[in-house]
């Protein structure tokens, strides 16, 4: 009976809010939720014992200046993915800007560590395969927690994999270590690990704050992650439909699991 009621509620939510797949994603399947929570706990343990201490150590031995160079370096490696995907989304001007940024910052910006192009008015405008698929109306699918990589959805996962293929260091390593199987990708993996640490360092304060005030970190991160993704789903939110954040404060059933 409860299931029927829930189904009816979801159906009602669909027809009134029309947020479609994105909204359903917050009401997750219980088997999937128990997997997700288990994987989330595993990731949290890995973070507590390995990633977070390493990120803190990284913060202790580097300066703001160095960390910004590192973040810029990794952001620059994502420009080829942005270039291709702006193109796939039909934004050719943005695609050209990404190409220009990559060319200028890789050379004059010393391997991307300085955002020279940004100073010339070519501002960073990141996109990826996930955004392209969203524009092509590919549904997002349910919330899933990936091992080590954390919160995701099936479409988000495909996007991550696709964007990784557009990373120039992946291909540089592939060709540089040609014929030497044992050392293939070791450079790439090392860089990926550094990128991971750099990303974790940038989020240290925010995540510490969140875990210290939330009674359900999993629930909070899931909700925030899915809401943030709604801005990509241009297909589901056509003109004339209310934005996802324009909910009715008197609606007792909105957003409840």
């Amino acid at each position, binding site marked *: 009976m409860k299931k029927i009621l829930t189904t009816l509620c979801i159906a009602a939510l669909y027809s009134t809010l029309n947020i479609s797949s994105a909204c359903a994603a917050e009401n997750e399947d219980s088997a999937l939720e128990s997997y997700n929570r288990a994987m989330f706990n595993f990731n949290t343990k890995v973070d507590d014992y390995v990633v977070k201490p390493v990120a803190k150590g990284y913060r202790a031995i580097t300066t703001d200046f160095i960390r910004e160079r590192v973040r810029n370096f990794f952001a620059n490696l994502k420009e080829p993915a942005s270039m291709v995907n702006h193109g796939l989304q039909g934004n050719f001007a943005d695609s050209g800007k990404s190409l220009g940024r990559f060319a200028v910052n890789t050379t004059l910006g010393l391997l991307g560590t300085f955002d020279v192009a940004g100073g010339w008015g070519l501002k960073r405008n990141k996109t990826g395969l996930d955004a392209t698929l969203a524009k092509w109306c590919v549904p997002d699918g349910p919330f899933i927690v990936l091992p080590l990589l954390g919160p995701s959805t099936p479409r988000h996962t495909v996007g991550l994999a696709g964007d990784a293929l557009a990373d120039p260091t992946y291909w540089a390593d592939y060709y540089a270590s040609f014929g030497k199987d044992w050392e293939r990708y070791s450079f790439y993996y090392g860089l990926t690990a550094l990128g991971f640490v750099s990303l974790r360092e940038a989020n240290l304060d925010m995540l510490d704050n969140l875990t210290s005030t939330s009674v359900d970190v999993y629930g909070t991160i899931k909700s925030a992650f899915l809401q943030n993704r709604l801005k990509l789903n241009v297909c589901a939110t056509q003109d004339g439909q209310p934005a996802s954040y324009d909910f009715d*404060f008197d609606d007792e059933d909105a957003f409840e699991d």
Partner: protein
Amino acid sequence: MKKICLAILAALTMWSWSAMAAIDAQKAEDFVKDLTQQGIEQLINSNASEAEKQARFTKLFNEDLDLDFIGKFVLGRYWRTATPKQRADFIDVYRKLNIQTWSARFNEFKGKRFEFLGSESSKSADQVFVNTQVPMPEGAPASVKWRVKETGGKYRIVDIIIENVSLAQTARSEYTGYIQKSPEGVNGLIKDLRAKLK
């Protein structure tokens, strides 16, 4: 001719009626400007002591945020079945926890400023979204939308939407999901939220 006149008259009456009932977007924008400039930017960058900043921030928070309204929403359907004491206790701990969270997080806005991008109407006539963005040192500016509600001429914030993430909605997902799993229900939530207070 008479019919057209009547139609125009009716349309005008309805238009002015809806204009009267709806929140004044310009005033809402001025309210948020005041809040961000005098409240946040000056407060963060001032030389006042931490205790003084904390006191001023708490005052600002209590005056400009409609936490009774938000608290009712974040408790969802459990608000209806909650006793008056549970409601009061929840609002109290929710208020304290928010002040604690935000006084820590507003420091992230140190040296930054809000750029105003106009407003956006809401389905609710007494509410409006004031759009702002905060330029970031790296990458695209962060989008911050302020949901403003007018109650008897007084403007208050009822939600803040950062990068499409609504704080009210996130809190509701967290709390209602928690109550559902907690054997002690609303009391369990209040107890565990109190434990989060420093």
